[in-house]
Each structure stands twice: as structure tokens, then as C-alpha cells.
């Protein structure tokens, strides 16, 4: 199963994400974010951050979950490569993310994501496969 694929959008960048469980969908969305934003292969998992998100419903949770990576990049200068979701229900997500501090000498920022949008976002389950479109503002 593909984790995610790119879709074209004139001004910005969109993906379609898949997962056999809702948790996997969230993990794959994070993987997609890391790959779009930077080069995960160049990032060492030398530090970790706990992320807790509280929102109403999976869609808002998903936007906030990815939004946390942006916030931590802009405010704490951190890039991530891996995540481990510890708990997830409709209103709550708790996860650990691994990465390191952004070093312009070693790390490339491939796409400067400015926001994770709700545009066309719709989590659907069909035949045991969860999927959604996510459009990033870049």
C-alpha cells in the first residue's frame, strides 16, 4: 500500500494519504509532511518532542497534528524524520516525534509549507482503507 501520493494544485501542493487504520493514516500524513518539507534521510533522530493535540474530530486533529511540525520548526528550529503515535481518538492525539535542530549547512528545506489547509480535506474509509486529500499552503 502506498503511504501517500502527490496531486497537482496550481498555487500549492497537495497529497493523497492512505492508511489501513486511522492511526496509520495520521502516521503516513506525518511521513508525507517530513518528506515534502525536508530530506528525512539527512535528519538524525537525536532529540524528541512529545506532541499533544486536543480538537473536535479527526479532521481538525489531523490539521493540528501536522501544524505542530510547522510551529516547532518556526519557533524552535526543529526538523523531524519519524513519529510514533501513542494514543489517538476522535478528540485527542498524543505522539513522540524524533528529529534534530535545523542546520542550513546540512539540511535542505525542499518546500516551505506555510500552512496545512482544510481545503478538500475529508477523511473517508472504504473497504478498510482510510484516505484523505491534504492541501498545503506553500
Amino acid at each position, binding site marked *: 500500500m502506498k503511504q501517500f501520493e*502527490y496531486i497537482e494544485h496550481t498555487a500549492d*501542493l497537495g497529497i493523497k494519504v492512505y492508511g489501513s487504520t486511522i492511526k496509520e493514516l495520521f502516521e503516513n500524513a506525518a511521513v508525507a509532511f517530513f518528506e515534502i518539507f525536508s530530506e528525512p534521510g539527512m535528519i538524525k533522530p537525536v532529540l524528541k518532542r512529545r506532541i499533544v493535540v486536543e480538537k473536535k474530530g479527526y479532521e481538525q486533529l489531523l490539521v493540528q497534528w501536522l501544524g505542530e511540525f510547522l510551529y516547532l520548526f518556526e519557533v524552535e528550529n526543529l526538523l523531524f524524520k519519524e513519529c510514533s503515535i501513542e494514543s489517538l481518538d476522535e478528540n485527542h492525539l498524543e505522539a513522540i516525534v524524533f528529529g534534530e535542530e535545523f542546520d542550513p549547512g546540512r539540511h535542505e*528545506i525542499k518546500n516551505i509549507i506555510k500552512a496545512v489547509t482544510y481545503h478538500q480535506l475529508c477523511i473517508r474509509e472504504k473497504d478498510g482503507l482510510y484516505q484523505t486529500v491534504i492541501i498545503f499552503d*506553500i
Partner: protein
Amino acid sequence: MLRDIQKDLSLTQVANVACLPGIVGPSLAMPDIHWGYGFPIGGVAAFDLDRGVVSPGGVGYDINCGVRLMRSNLKRNSLKDKLKNLIDAIYRNIPAGVGSRRKDLKLSPTDESKVMKNGAAWAIEQGFGISQDLGHIEERGCISGANPELVSNKAKDRGRSQLGTVGSGNHFIEIAYVAEIYQEEAAKVLRLEKDSVTIMIHSGSRGFGHQVCDDFLSVMLEASKKYGIELPDKQLACAPITSKEGKNYLSAMACAANFAFANRQLMTHWVRESFHQVLDVPLKELGLDLIYDVCHNIAKVEEFNLQGKKRKLCIHRKGATRAFPPDHPTLPLDYKSIGQPVLIPGDMGRYSFVLLGTKRAMEDTFGSTCHGAGRVMSRHQAIKVAKGRAIIREMADKGILVRSAGKRTVVEEISEAYKDVAKVVNVVHMAGIGKRVVKLIPLAVLKG
């Protein structure tokens, strides 16, 4: 152009906006319309203050992304050997690109509150600019009703280190010259002559505005359910203007708009300093005066004449520019006779335009006109098209120096990725919702 517009979902987006409660008159699109989220980019819509809604998706993420233009006493020929030093000085003095922060401007939480409440005036009080600048900024550089308590700590955190930075993507600082004058008299009022050097700054509220938009999209998604508003697209989430959610958004949005005004004001100061440092000419002699500063992404209350009656409406402009006509009460004295300057940046390789607001815009488009070229290629496509080409060299061969914090940005921003802004400007000029005054051609560009 119409054929291009039909290629994506932007016209559906215009139709979606027309379905929102309390819209007054048509859901409008400017000729630079393209696919946005929720509202299209280039969308304009006005809402009744009692029955209408306000939507963060009608403003966009980069709240008060906007443009300002400075004039100068310098002529293009006098800069020939100094251009490289000038753009390098600007590059040194103003952080650009991803993750850029200012190390010399430490903003305390109290300062940041003042930025949110006072906008450009805060910067001027701190010595970044002169009080005459204020009259030449839309809303005098401050949207009223800002309440910092309604802004999340996350937005404040993201903003604190980014004030005074250009940002990335399509944001830029550009040195250009007046290549053509279409209206001699108006150009004289703007103090622009043939070959005059100008400086344009395109930037917004950085991460601060993005976070405010993001925070309020969640609030509005819940509010839409609460008030029974059906949404064809979640990004259109909105709330009645009279509701707590609606009022809170407008207050938080004002904070972000004021942050952006202060941001552009700070950069104006550092541009002036850079010219002063490199040319070693007193600031007064350089005449780097602000022509105007306009918002491209904003919602605010303005007064219009509808069927002979004055009526206040909440106007959303998302990728559109206010274009008030001559004699409008909000205009500064020196522009009363010509109307409000409208600044339309093009892509980095071609040209930009200065227009003036018109009576027709007031009647037909709620005092609005286009805002720029609009992309025709996605960033990915642009990278494919530019593969193997040395874009910075190509630009230098055309006589345009380019400095950029990120190599990719320059490639993503190639001319071909944008519509020809002259065509967009031609449409608004012919439609009478903006009057062309001068054309500017770039000499040196700092890209994010």
C-alpha cells in the same frame, strides 16, 4: 485568460462564496483569479453587518499580505555600478527566506502587544520611519478593534522572531525604475518621473497571521455547525459578523494585519538605511518617500453607496486590492485629486504597475481591483520547466540582479510560472476598475 481560469476549480469557488449567508451583491472575481482554498484568490465579497458572515478563508492565511512602494530622487543610470552593493546591503540588513529571524530586534511580549494594537505607528514610534509615512498606508497602517488577548500564544511565539523579515515564496524586495508613464499628471502627483528608481516590498504577517487563520478555522468550523451554516468546502468556515466568534476573529485578524503593517514599515526603514549606507548620500537627498501601502488579504468594514443609500459592509478581499476613487474621504490630501494608488506586482522578470482607484471600482466592485499576476504553473511544474537552466544567470543577462535565500525559490518564481501581469492590468484598466499610471521594470530583486 478566461480559458486558463476555467482549467481549475476557481469559478466553482466564486459560486460557493455566493452561497454564503448575508452576501450583498455579487460574489466577485478579479482577472487574476486562481484556485485558492475556500475563497478563490482574486475573490471579493461584501456582507451585510447584521445578517452576513465573516470567514477566515475569505482573507487567507497570510493576513494583510500586501505591497508598498517607495519613490526616490535617484535615476536608473546613477545606480549602475552600485546596484550589486545595494541589493547585497538589503540582503544583509533584512533577513529573508525560510526560518529567517531577526537577531537584533528582540520583541518582548509587551512590545508585541503594542505591535498588534498600533501597527505601523508602533514602528515609527521606535524610530523606524517618519510620521509622514502613515498617511500613505491603507487605514494609516492600523486596523481598529485589535485585541491581543484573542490571539493564541502560538501565534505570538511564531510572530516574535519574524517581525522585520521578508519571508519566502512570492515575497520580495525589488529595486525597479519607471519605464513608462501613462498619465503624466498623476505621475507628477506621485512624484514619479521616467527612469526614477523605486523600491517595492511585498510581504505580510508571516507565521503570526498563518497561526491566527489556523486557530480561527477551528473556531469557525464549530461555529458554522452551531449557527447552521452549510459549507460546500470546510475552508469556507465562517460565523455571523454579530456573533462572538465573528467578532473575535475580526479582532484577532486586526492584530495580524497590524503586525504586517509594522513588518513592512520596519523593512522600509532598513531599505532606506541600506541606500544611505551604500550610496553615502543623506537620507533627505535620497527622497525615499512612501508612495503607498496596500493590503491584498483583508476583511474590514467600509462604507459604500448602494442604490443611493450609504451602507456599511464587511468586505473580504482575498488577493485583491482596495481601489478608492478621487475625493474619497479616507484618502490623504495629496492624493485626493488622483485617487488611491494601487500597486500591482508582476513576476520578477517582467514588470509591475502602479494604478489608481476609480469611481467605477466603487460602483462595480466594492472599491476593489486586481492584486497581481497569479500563477499559471504549480511550483512543481515550474521546477520541471526550469530544469537545467541557470535562472539567476538568465535574469542577469536581462539586466536583473537576483539574490535569494533559497535556490529553489528562484526556480519556482520564474516568469513563465505567472500570467503576464500586463494582461491582467489591461483588463482592469479597460473595465475601468483601475487606471494605469506607470510601468516599473525590475533592476534587482531580493527573493525569500
